[in-house]
Structures are given as C-alpha cells and as structure tokens.
C-alpha cells in the first residue's frame, strides 16, 4: 500500500493506506482522532469538517490522496482546555450547543472563516456555516459565539 504524507495538526504524519479511502476514516481509525464526526458519509452535514490548508472540507468526502503534502487541522489541533482557541472559549461563554455532536465540524468551519475574514458580519458567519447542519437548534448561539471570538481575536 502506498504511503501518504501530510501534516496533521502540525505534526508530520505518514500513513500506509488505500489512497482512495476517505480522510475521515483514516483520521478516526488508524490515527485515532475522534473529534471529526461521521454524520452522513456524503459531505452533506458538516459534522466531519476539518481544515485542509485554509479551507474547511468534509473529510468524509475527501480522499486521502488529495491531502498529500498538505496541512490538515482537526478540532484536536484547534485548541485544548489548557490552551483553548478563542472560538472554544466563546462557545463555552455563549453555551453555544445542545448535544454537541455537530460542534467539532462547526468549529472548524468557523476557524476557516476567521482565517480568511477576521471580522465577519452575522450574515458572513451564517454563510460560512451553511454547509453545517445542527438539529438541536443552537444556530443563533453559535453565530454569536463566532462573532464574540472574532471580536476577541481582533482586540489582540
């Protein structure tokens, strides 16, 4: 099996796997990253979003070969309880979820947005999160949290 190299959360990673397999399967399986979630398997819900270079993509619909030599960031690479990303702090401050299954993907879509647009409007945030589904109805809290994080990052 060919070996594929990419950077995962800043760490050089090499994996022997079928290059046509979905990135999500590789992340959750051999690489043990359970942050990105399986929701639909066809790129329709956003629960598996990760950032490849600077774009949020559905990792369930992204073949492994396509990330060769690229930078892949999952929620595990976004921040931790000890060193939280402003988005994570803001999601807690706004209590911006109910069940939280979709939130790993939503945080990554939001992080990608803030990388290219540090001061988004409410409409910008909604557009950026439009490929992410939330069934519990926490959308408005999440939008507020993203705007709060953007403001905090802008003030730094």
């Amino acid at each position, binding site marked *: 099996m060919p070996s594929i190299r990419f950077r995962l959360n800043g760490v050089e990673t090499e994996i022997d796997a079928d290059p046509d*397999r979905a990135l999500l*399967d590789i992340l959750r*399986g051999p690489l043990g990253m*359970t*942050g990105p*979630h*399986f*929701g*639909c*398997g*066809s790129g*329709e*819900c956003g*629960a598996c979003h990760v950032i490849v270079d600077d774009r949020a993509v559905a990792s369930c619909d992204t073949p492994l070969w396509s990330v060769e030599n690229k930078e892949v960031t*999952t*929620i*595990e690479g976004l*921040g*931790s*309880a000890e060193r*939280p990303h402003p988005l*994570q702090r803001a*999601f*807690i401050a706004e*209590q911006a*979820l*109910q*069940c*939280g*299954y*979709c*939130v*790993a993907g939503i*945080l990554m879509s939001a992080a990608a947005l803030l990388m290219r647009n540090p001061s988004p409007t409410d*409409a910008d*945030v*909604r*557009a950026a*999160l*439009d490929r*992410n*589904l*939330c*069934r*519990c*109805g*926490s*959308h*408005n*809290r*999440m*939008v507020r949290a993203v705007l709060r994080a953007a403001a905090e990052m802008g003030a730094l």
Partner: protein
Amino acid sequence: MTATPKLPISLAANPRLSSWVKFSSEGWVALSPGKVEIGQGIVTALAQIAADELDVDIGRVQLVRASTAASPNEGVTSGSLSIQQSGRAIRQACAEIRQIFLAAAADRLGIDANALDISDGTISGPGNVQTSYWELADEVSLDRDATLEAAPKSAAKRALAGQSVQRVDLPDKVFARPRFIHDLTLPSMLHGRVLRPERSRARLAELNENGARAVAGLVAVVRDGSFAGVVSETEDGAETALSALRKGATWSVGEALPDENDLAAFLKAQPVESTIIDTRASSKTSDKQRTMRRQFTRPYIAHASIAPSCAMAQWNGDRVHVWTHSQGVYLLRADLALVLNIPVENITVEHLEGAGCYGHNAADDVALDAVLLAKAAGGRPVRVQWSRADEMTHAPFGAAMAIEIEADLDPQGEIVDWRHSIWSNGHAARPGRAAQPALLAGFELGNPFPRTISSNPPQANGGGGDRNSIPLYDFPSWNIESHRLLTMPVRTSALRTLGAQGNVFAIECFLDEVATERGEDPINFRLRHLRDERAKDVIRAAARRANWKPEKKPGTGYGAGFARYKNTGAYCAAIAEIEGEQDIRVKRLTLAVDVGEAINPDGVINQIEGGAIQATSWVLKERVRFDSQRITSSSWTDYPILRFSEVPQVQVDVIQRSDIEPVGAGEAAHGPVTAAIANAVFDCLGVRIRNLPITRDSLIAAMELAS
C-alpha cells in the same frame, strides 16, 4: 384538611437513598440519576439541585451514567419529565441525606444539629468545631429508604437553582474529548453492520454470502430470517463486506405504502380504535347560527439526528453487556430479554451519550443489532453503527396526523360548541412497555415477533395523538375524539411533543380564523377565553416583547400561537414575524415561557430556542417522502432541514416562578411556533395553510383552493 405529603414519584419507585447519592472520602459527591443526557442539559440542572440541597460546590458533583447495574429505574427520559421526576426526587433525597449527615455530625461533635451549618461539604458549629461529608462518608450509611422526614430548602435559600450555571458536559464537547458513544473504543472491539431492505418490510429471500466472506478482516456473516449482518475486524472491512452482502441479497417485494400526497384520505380510511378524549356539556341552549369546519394535516416527520445510531455489545457466556444511547436503559433491557429469551439479570445496559435525541429513534434498534451480531464474535465486543440512509428510513417516524375541527358559531361569531377529531397512528411504540418487543430486528428474525402497532399514552400521562387536543379555552361545550389507526404501514413512535404539535397547530390556526372573521385581534380573543393567569401572562409577555401588533408592511406578516404543553406542563406563547412571497422566510420568533421554577434559566432558554428553530424546520421543510414501496427521503438532500442562513432570530422571555414546582421546557415551543408561523403566513398573504409543511407547493395549492 391537607393532603398527606408523598414522596416524589421517582423516589417512591427507588426509595433507597444510596441509589441516588454516594460520598467519597476524597471530597466527591456521586450523583446517580436514572434520566440521561440527550443534549438537553439535564445533568447540569440535576447537579445544581443536588449541590444546592447538600450545600456543596457544584464542581464536586460527579454524574454517574445510567446503568441497569446500579442506577435508580426512572423509566424513560422523555415527555419533558426529567426535571419534574428526577429533579424532585434528587431534591428530596438530598434534603434527607443532608439531615442524616447533620445528625451524624451532631453526634460526633457533641453539638445540637440545629447549631450546625454546612458550607461546601464542611459541617461546622460554634467553637470552631467541624467535620465534613467526606470525613463522615465511611461511617454514615445511606442504605436506607427516604422517609419524607426532612423537607427541601425554601426557594429563597437555594443558591444555585435559578442561576444559569454553565453546562457540565460542554467542555468535553468543545474540546473533543471522547464522550459520545461513537468515539469510544473497547479492547479488542470488532465492527458490525446490518443489511436492511430498501423496500418497506421486504423479506430476505436469498442471500449469497460468498462476496462478503471474501472481504479481508471478515469475522462472521450473521443471518436469522430477514435479519442479516456482518462482523469485521475493522470498520472499513465491515462496510465493504456489507456492500458485498447487499449485492448477494434477493428481497421479496415490499409492503404497500400510502399515497404521500393524500395522507388525510389514507388516515381516515383505515380501521381505527376510537376514543372520546373529553366532553364538556353546556347547560344553556346554544344560539348556533353556522358551523365552521376545517381540516389540518401534518406529515410523517423524521428524528434525523446528526449522528447515526450506534451501540456496542459484548457477550460473556450467557450474559451480555450493552452500551447504548437509548432513552431508557431498563426498558431496552426488558425488550432485549424478550428477544433473547434470557432473564433480565443476565443483561446489563449502560448509557453513553449520543447526538441530540428528539424521541424514540433507532437507538434501541441498533442496540439489538449489536447484541445479535456480537453472538458471533466469540466474546469480543462489537460496535454497530447505522448508515445515514438507514437512520432516515428505518428508524420510527413521528406520526402523520389529520385533524378536523368543527365549531358552531353564534350570530356574533363566538364559539358555542367545539368538536375536534384526530386520525393518526399511535405516537408511542417504545421498548419495554409490552409483552412483545418493539425492536426492529425482532420483527426480522426467522421466528419473528409481530410488528408493534403504536399506541397512545393515556390522557392522564399527557396523551399521545390526543396530546394538547383538549382546549385550554373556556368554550361552552366540546367533544374531543381520537381515532388511532390499527394498521401501520409506516413505522411510527414517539417524536418530540407526540400529537401536540399537530393539535396546537390546528386549534390555534382555527381560533385565528374565528377571531379574524369577528374582526377581533387574535391575542385579545385568546385572552378573553382563558381563565388561567399564567397562560395569559405568557401571551401578554410575548405580545409586549414583539410590540404586538406591529404596523402592517407589504410582504411581512405576524402571527401568534399559544399552548400549555400537555395541558399540565410549561406555558409557552410564540409570535412569528415572517416575510413571504413565493417562499416563506421566518425572520423572528418571540417567545415567552413559564416552567414554574426555572432551575437553569439559560438552559430553559436554550431548550425553547432550540425547540422554536426545530419547529420552524418542521414547518417549512420537513416531510418524510415515499413512493408506493419505499421511503425515498434517505439523505439530507431528500430530507432537508433548516440551515444557518434560514434560521430566524429567536427571543425568549422566561417568567421565573421560584415557588412553583418546575416542569420541563424541551417540548413547549413546537406547537405554538408552528401555529404562529401559519397564522403569520395568513397575515402576510391572506391564505390559510392547513397542510404542513408550508412550502412553495403548499402555498400554491392553498391559493388555488382559495380562488
């Protein structure tokens, strides 16, 4: 004469105090509710109640996951009853436990218990003497039953209840620490997948297993009648083997499904069990001038959780351990015992969190799938996860409903008699409630159990299809009748609100029409027919916050809806602002809610906001699709839900009533929001939509009907 005080219902069923609370000498309180976290924030509210009553910091309260091995049996986490049942039980149990520890501390310190005080678990008295829960933990036995001898604190003395404490489960979810059942791995775990037919209830006629057996990592192909699945060393291997198995399967034709475009005709043509839900007779002769009759429908609605259902199971001889996100670990265990024909004592069912759960979805079904596949795993645990398509097509749906309301009106257009009839499948087919199991694989086995026909809980428990069908308005007379279908071509069971969404939609839209015909403001009409001040307060609060009724602008409409969930639960009023031409866009929802004592006000707001947004999604988008043989809405493309860009602004006012027993908030918003949107559509476009969902097609159909 006052009524004899009684133990809260969950505490009466599980009176042993140690089954609820344990102290560790290291300074922790283990709190063990029988209710489970399904995304609603319940564990936080219960921790608040316990911390308050025990006088400990909430950070010391550790929630124990529900398990049939140890937890109190609180039935199912449903019906907005967790605060009411678990919350009251924990409050009373903790009050008694506090008293027991005070007595033990008094003994040890030689001080009267009345002179002692507790602060963050430290029990102290005059002269700087002190001990603590932790010090006394080993010598005080809580293996005793609740007695009602101690009373919980008064509302004024609670420090945490009524505060918007942050959710205890939220950091794990934001930092992606494995907490969901989907993210957990057991040692030497295998992966399973189950083959399900595309055609409704098709039987597996032939199965060529060769393709599946050739897949690397395959451990077993399991077949029992129409139930078939694979077990593999890897998840990828299980998926590949399942695809191969699907190619080798020959199915019978399916069973016929109804016409999705004429659900009312289908529902009304079926054999039914008819029940008079309520009647009210008037002593006065009515001054009836005319009769108004309207029919309302709602379609089948999918739970459509973001995560597909998942479970793990592991056999050890004739005993099996099951990990599940079921809403009722004891109820699932009862049905597993029926299918497996083994004693319940041989089965341990343990809860792990899943994605948001809005009723009886496939959580229980997948647990049986895992148990059956794990039989072929030689004692290794098997994890089974459903596909998105199976989740959307094989899990139970919320039942379609046809509702007919007839009202006799007097010359002033006032209602003098009211008749409400419901045709619907039952809204409950949960496991653990009947002599036969209600789990999907049980219907597929070679020696199958009969398919459950959904039933309805009795009115005393809130009813099912008839939930919220008895008017809260003081009409002089009425007759409420429910027709429960005795056939069930589309599998239905409990979905958030059961029949309340449909009934409140029908009642509140009908009233809006009556008020409009009288030329009366619909808010005023409601207030005039309500006697319950709490009901009037939520309506007035929502109206005030929404500046009812804003001046009419072209292309904009406003509508109102109100209900008290189950007629005994939370009061909720909603006002919708919509924009509409060809498509309807809900711009803003303004709600007021009264749950009695709001233990965690932000938690209440979160539930009401979420309910309002989910209801908007149901109203504008959702409808299970099918042709004559198969459910066709098997993906998010075929079953769209509301997206970020379509979500309305939502404002929620909570009317805090600290001295009134708390009730749940999770299902209060759906009915009022549904009606408010439909009434706003009329205000905007002058057309009454009585068939959900409200889409471009249904608008055109209603306009054609009106012209």
